[in-house]
């Protein structure tokens, strides 16, 4: 959770350093961020480029130099229980947004994973083969699932930022 706070601070400082835009092109800070990561290389991108975006299926996406890293949220890993196996796709698999790309097996059930974006899988977290528990222990860092290209950057705009996701979780818990 501390990591999320750091990312939030980074995103705020990034937006303040960007040039002002006319009202016609008024963009939300999140949108500015998403576009910036593809169109320009900022010096601040070396550590934290983009904030986490979330899907309503409790997956998170973080984009860094055009490559999206995907994982499941803390809410999801808590709900799943101990993960005993990660069924992930092959590198090179092409995914459309919402395509099922694998499953996490826990004592709870086999839970399907849905792609947050359209793109191609470039990397799969091999550490999970011998240590599937990383998904529970470090869901935002070492427990990442796949990396993929971002074919349709606009899809990121449709995802929730951290604050919106937190509100979403509260609404479903009630």
């Amino acid at each position, binding site marked *: 959770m501390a990591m999320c706070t750091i990312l939030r601070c980074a995103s705020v400082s990034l937006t303040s350093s960007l040039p002002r835009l006319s009202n016609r092109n008024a963009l939300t800070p999140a949108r500015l961020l998403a576009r910036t990561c593809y169109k320009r290389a900022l010096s601040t991108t070396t550590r934290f480029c983009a904030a986490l975006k979330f899907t309503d299926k409790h997956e998170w996406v973080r984009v860094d130099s055009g490559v999206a890293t995907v994982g499941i949220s803390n809410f999801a890993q808590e709900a799943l229980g101990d993960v005993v*196996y990660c069924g992930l796709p092959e590198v090179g698999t092409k995914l459309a947004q919402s395509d099922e790309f694998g499953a996490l097996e826990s004592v*709870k*059930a086999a839970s399907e994973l849905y792609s947050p974006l359209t793109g191609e899988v470039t990397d799969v977290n091999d550490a999970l083969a011998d240590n599937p528990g990383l998904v529970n222990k470090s869901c935002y860092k070492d427990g990442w699932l796949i990396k993929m290209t971002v074919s349709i950057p606009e899809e990121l705009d449709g995802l929730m930022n951290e604050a919106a996701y937190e509100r979403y979780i509260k609404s479903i818990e009630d």
Partner: protein
Amino acid sequence: MILRLLNRACVLSGSVRLKSTLSTFFDEMGKSGIILKSATTGIFENLALEDWIHDHVDLQNRSMLLLWRNSPAVVIGRHQNPWQECNLPLMRRLGIPLARRRSGGGTVFHDFGNINMTFFTSKKKYDRHRNLKVITSALKALRPDLEVAATDRFDILLNSHYKISGTAAKLGRTSAYHHCTLLCSVDRSVLSSVLKSNTSEVIKSNATPSVPSPVRNLLDVDPTLDSDTIMNAIASQYSNEFGFDGPVITVDPTHEALMPGIHKMAQDLQMWEWIYGRTPKFSVCSSLVVDDVTVKLDMDIKNGAVEQCAMEIPEDWLPSEMVNEFTSALNGSKYCPNEAAVLVAAFTRTVSVTADVAEKIHRLCAGVVSVM
């Protein structure tokens, strides 16, 4: 035409109006709980029926129970290794098919003496303990002296010791299903022999393992308990527990018009790429004895295909170039006895070898195939 199909395919209560699919029929029925029974006993058709219902029926405000039985089959969990879990050569000899389901969990043996129950709900209403309570309550209502109880692992034990039911589940986008078995009068000798792998010691894998347990049939403790009686009791208890009413509807999962796409789902479940190809990466390390010679075999299998194959064979028995040709022939092939035999036979035809060497290669192949 669909009306005729409906009449033939489904035993329905009340008036039958023209419906386009089973899904819209349920919507129009307006019931919040439905009990279904499958009309077929094919494992792939029934697994496809589960998937179809999960994908197409609106389960947000409706729950369903599906009762089904199969002719003999072995069913492995989504992330399991069949070579580790069951005796594939024995199953081939007995004509018992292997299926891989989409839910997690371990390996089970089905035959007509086993009842399968699938509880479909929204993700919010997913509650395995409540479902298992339906089963234990139903059994106790039939025979109050029966000692049956669910465990933390979602097994049901008879007399606190014998497993009579195992559970697996799948969580999808918005809905979930929990399915479980119930041993009524299963052939236990077939069960124990097919669920014992002949090659587990030579396999190194991180696939999800089964937890073997001693089992018993309900029939063993009470010969008057037959599958039909038990199924009716469970259907009745399900209605009581969840406050539903309505008859049990029989559905034929082979009727494409009622369930568009179901035929392809059943076909997909029978593909080699799904059943064997989805096995997590594993390695085989075995010492074979061929013609009194010890052959060390090392293979890496990925997606059910031989990714890498190496053999250590005494040079005086078979020259190393022959060994290299043999291992090259297997590289990239399906980890499957038929495929291996065909490839090796083809390679011995293309390479000029003496009859003696050809015989040795043939016997070596038989040895390698014995671990497949």
